[in-house]
């Protein structure tokens, strides 16, 4: 049984305390959806969970071990999809994914893995086209296809549905469901409709210091 627990997390960006005393618990097969206004710290929390920024206070633990004590092994556990698509226009879709598959180095059959990832997001027909011809929705799908290149227990997705049409959202719902069925965890922030059955919700407005001040005054 894997557990991913945040306790009393605070995040400081520059001079501003973005959120404080944030707790959550996540274990196998569970999904956590982050909600909150713009600027409530969803992306900051996501980057913090991905290990890109350090918490100002509090701890993030993976199976009881503090994730920031051994950040390299935390990186082994997760896949992070941010706002940016990390797609190279001069490379073909296949070459883009091939690079990431090599970097993740799971030792799986490379071609089969990449083909499956392309199929899951319905990109097979344009696999040999250069990245520059992609529409923004296709770029998003190619970026999400990275999730299928490696077996990692934790997926961290920052507004994965931006730019996706209804059909593409369904592809994403399917792979998230499969991931959870095989015991994976998902943390995602989103504004618009993606159906994630029985998920936990973390409302960041609750932890935002700015809102607390507003209420107090």
């Amino acid at each position, binding site marked *: 049984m894997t557990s991913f627990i945040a306790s009393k997390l605070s995040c400081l960006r520059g001079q501003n305390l973005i959120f404080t005393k944030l707790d959550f618990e996540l274990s196998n097969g569970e999904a956590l959806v982050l909600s909150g206004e713009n600027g409530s710290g969803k992306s900051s929390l996501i980057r913090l969970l*991905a*290990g*890109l*920024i*350090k918490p100002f206070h509090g701890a993030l633990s993976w199976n009881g071990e503090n994730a920031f004590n051994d950040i*390299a092994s935390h*990186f*082994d556990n*997760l896949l*992070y999809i*941010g*706002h*940016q*698509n*990390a*797609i*190279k226009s*001069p*490379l073909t879709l296949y*070459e883009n994914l*091939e*690079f*990431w598959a*090599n*970097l*993740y*180095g799971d030792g799986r059959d490379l071609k089969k893995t990449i083909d499956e990832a392309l199929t899951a997001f319905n990109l097979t027909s344009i696999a040999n086209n250069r990245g520059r011809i992609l529409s923004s929705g296709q770029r998003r799908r190619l970026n999400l296809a990275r999730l299928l290149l490696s077996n990692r227990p934790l997926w961290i997705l920052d507004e994965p549905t931006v730019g996706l049409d209804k059909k593409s959202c369904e592809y994403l719902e399917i792979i998230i469901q499969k991931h959870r069925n095989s015991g994976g965890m998902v943390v995602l922030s989103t504004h618009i409709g993606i159906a994630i059955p029985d998920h936990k919700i973390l409302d960041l407005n609750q932890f935002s210091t700015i809102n607390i001040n507003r209420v107090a005054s």
Partner: protein
Amino acid sequence: MSPYFAVIKRDLLLSYRQGADLVMVLAFFLIASALFPLAVGPDPVILGRIASGIIWVLALLSVMLSLDRIFHNDYDDGALEQMEISPQSFYLIILAKIIAHWITTGIPLIILSPIIAIMLNLDNDAFITMILSLAIGTPILSLIGAIGAALSLGARRAGLLVAMLVLPLYIQILIFAISAIDASINNFPVRPHLLFLAAILAAALPLAPLAAAASIRQAFE
């Protein structure tokens, strides 16, 4: 494929498909060197005297102009942060990117340099030394340049900032490279100067990726 080899392959493929970037750096190297005979006059003796200096200063500037290729694109589209949180050593990924930068910038400069040397009437005895000094020196330019490029991530007017950061650090490379070429023109032993250059390379090879990786992490904060 080894992940680090995949990084090199990707960067080489990118610069091959975006060939204009490389051509522009090399064209700068050629055009700028063609300005000197016009500026100081066509006297072969004077040109031969300053040829080694021109070649090396222009090599420094050409490498500097190409430094934004190492990290900036990958920083802007989020690929660099994905590389950091990949299971591979970020230090070795950075080293692989620097090697790819040297292959696409340093080696073409080395190949082009004899043309400029002939054009500027460099002493024939000094050709081998010039190429050797560039072969040892240009990897150092890429290594130290990578630190400057990493420090300037996220900055406005990054190009000027890189110049301010990197050019002072290039001085010692210039000194030893030029003294090696001068030594070969004047029939003095060349070896000690090249060994000094090689010593700088030996220090920069392990240390520069370390500094670059630390500055990139700083940029993500």
